C-alpha cells in the first residue's frame, strides 16, 4: 500500500465535494492511503498573491511545514492550491525568500492529475479496471495552471499536453484532440465579471461540441464549476445547445474501476452526466 499526505483545500470541502469523494474512492481501490493534513488552512488563492507576496508565501508555507513533518509526498487536487504551493516553494528555495514557518523544502508536491497519470498508476488502472469505457468520446481540458508556467509545473508539453489523454486511453475512453486544451475559463472572475467567464465558457463549450465530445474532463474545481453550472444561461444567450457534462477525471476512473458511489458523485453536477453514460451502457 502506498501512503500519501493529502491537502484537499477549501473547494473540495464545498462545491467540489464530488472531486474529494472520487479521489478518496479511487485511491482506496488503488491501494493508496490518504492522510489528510492535520489542521490545514487556506493556501491563499485566489487573492493573497494579488495584494501581498509575503503573506501569500506564509499562507502556503504553513501547510507545507505541516506536510514536512512526515516523509510522505503531498497530494494536491486543486490546481490553484497546487500553483500557490509550487510558487511558494520556488520563492523560498530559488529566490531565498523567508517565511514565518520553518519549511526546508523537502516535500514533493504532487498535483492529483500528474500523480494519477504517472506510469505506475496507469499500470494499476489497466490491471484493475472492471470494464472498459468503450464508446465514450471526451475532450480533455487541462486549463491554465495545470501546465503553466512550466518552470513550476515541470510539464514540457504545455501547449499540447497529453497525460490526461493517456489516462483516458488506459480506461478505454476515446479522447479527441482539440485546440482548446489549455485555454482559460476565467477562474475567479466568475464572481465579479461573470460576463467575461460567460464568453470564455461559451467558446470552450462550442468547441467541445464541435469536436463531437460526449463530455469534457477536467482536474480543476474552478474549471468544472465555471463550465458546468452556466450552460442553461449560455444556451439562452447563444441559441446553441450544449448539454455537455463536465466530469472530474477521478469520476471516470471510479467508473472504470467499478466504484459503488459513482452515481452519487455524478448526481451533484448541474449538467446531468448520467443520461449520456447510461445511453452508452456504462452506468
Amino acid at each position, binding site marked *: 500500500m502506498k501512503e500519501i499526505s493529502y491537502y484537499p483545500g477549501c473547494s473540495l470541502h464545498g462545491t467540489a465535494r464530488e472531486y474529494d469523494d472520487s479521489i478518496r474512492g479511487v485511491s482506496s481501490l488503488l491501494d493508496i492511503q490518504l492522510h489528510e493534513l492535520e*489542521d490545514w488552512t487556506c493556501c491563499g488563492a485566489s487573492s493573497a498573491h494579488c495584494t501581498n507576496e509575503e503573506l501569500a508565501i506564509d499562507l502556503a508555507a504553513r501547510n507545507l511545514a505541516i506536510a514536512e513533518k512526515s516523509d510522505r509526498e503531498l497530494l494536491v487536487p486543486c490546481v490553484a492550491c497546487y500553483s500557490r504551493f509550487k510558487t511558494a516553494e520556488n520563492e523560498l528555495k530559488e529566490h531565498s525568500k523567508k517565511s514565518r514557518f520553518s519549511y526546508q523544502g523537502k516535500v514533493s508536491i504532487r498535483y492529483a492529475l500528474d500523480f494519477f497519470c504517472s506510469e505506475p498508476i496507469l499500470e494499476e488502472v489497466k490491471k484493475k479496471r472492471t470494464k472498459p469505457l468503450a464508446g465514450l468520446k471526451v475532450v480533455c481540458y487541462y486549463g*491554465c495552471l495545470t501546465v503553466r*508556467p512550466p518552470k513550476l509545473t515541470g510539464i514540457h508539453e504545455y501547449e499540447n499536453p497529453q497525460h490526461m489523454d493517456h489516462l483516458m486511453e488506459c480506461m478505454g475512453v476515446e479522447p479527441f484532440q482539440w485546440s482548446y486544451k489549455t485555454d482559460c475559463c476565467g477562474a475567479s472572475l466568475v464572481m465579479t465579471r461573470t460576463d467575461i467567464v460567460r464568453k470564455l465558457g461559451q467558446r470552450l463549450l462550442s468547441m467541445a461540441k464541435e469536436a463531437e465530445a460526449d463530455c469534457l474532463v477536467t482536474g480543476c474545481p474552478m474549471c468544472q464549476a465555471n463550465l458546468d453550472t452556466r450552460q442553461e444561461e449560455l444556451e439562452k444567450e447563444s441559441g446553441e445547445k450544449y448539454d455537455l457534462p463536465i466530469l472530474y477525471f477521478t469520476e471516470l476512473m471510479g467508473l472504470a474501476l467499478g466504484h459503488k458511489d459513482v452515481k452519487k458523485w455524478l448526481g451533484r453536477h448541474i449538467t446531468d452526466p448520467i443520461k449520456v453514460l447510461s445511453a452508452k451502457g456504462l452506468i
Partner: protein
Amino acid sequence: MDPSQKEKSFLSEVLQAGGETIQACYQCQKCSAGCPVAFAMDILPNQILRHIQFDHRERVLSSKTIWICASCYSCSVRCPNNIDIAKIMGTLRTLSIHSGFKLGEKDIPIFHSVFLDAIKSKGRIHELSLILQLKSKTRDFFKDAALGLKMYRKGMIKLFPSKFAGGREIKEIFNAYEKGERR
C-alpha cells in the same frame, strides 16, 4: 519631490518589485494575440509594457487590464524575450492598491479584499459566507440567486464552515501584516 522624478521611478519600481526584464519587450504583440481576456481590457498587455517603459504610472495603475488579467500565464510562456508578463500584472495589482489612484475595476478588488478577510476570520474559505459577504459589499444581491438555489438542491453548497484549530494561527499572521511587522 519633483513630479517628473516621481514619474521616472515607475519603471524601476516595477522592476524592483517584480524583478522582470521589461526593457527587453520589442512589441511583437504575441502576448496580446494569445490573451484570452484581451477583449475586456482597456490597454493591451503589450501596451502595458510600453507604458511602463515610458513611466506612465497612473495610466497603468488605474487601468482595467491589471484586474482583468486572469493570471493564465499564456503570455508568459509565449513571450520570445521570456518576460513573465502575468507575474508583472500581479506586481502592478499590488502597486495599484497602495497607489491611491482610482482603481480601474470596482468589484474585482473588492472580491480580493473580501476573500482575504474570509481567510483571516476562519482560516479556510467557506464559499457561502464568502459569496454573502461579497454581495453585501457589491450591493448585487440577486445575481445568480437562481443558480445558487439549484446548486443547493444538488448538495453542492455547504451551509456551515468546518471547525478546526488552525484558524487562530492565521489570524496572527494577518494581524502581524496589518501592524506592518515584517519577518
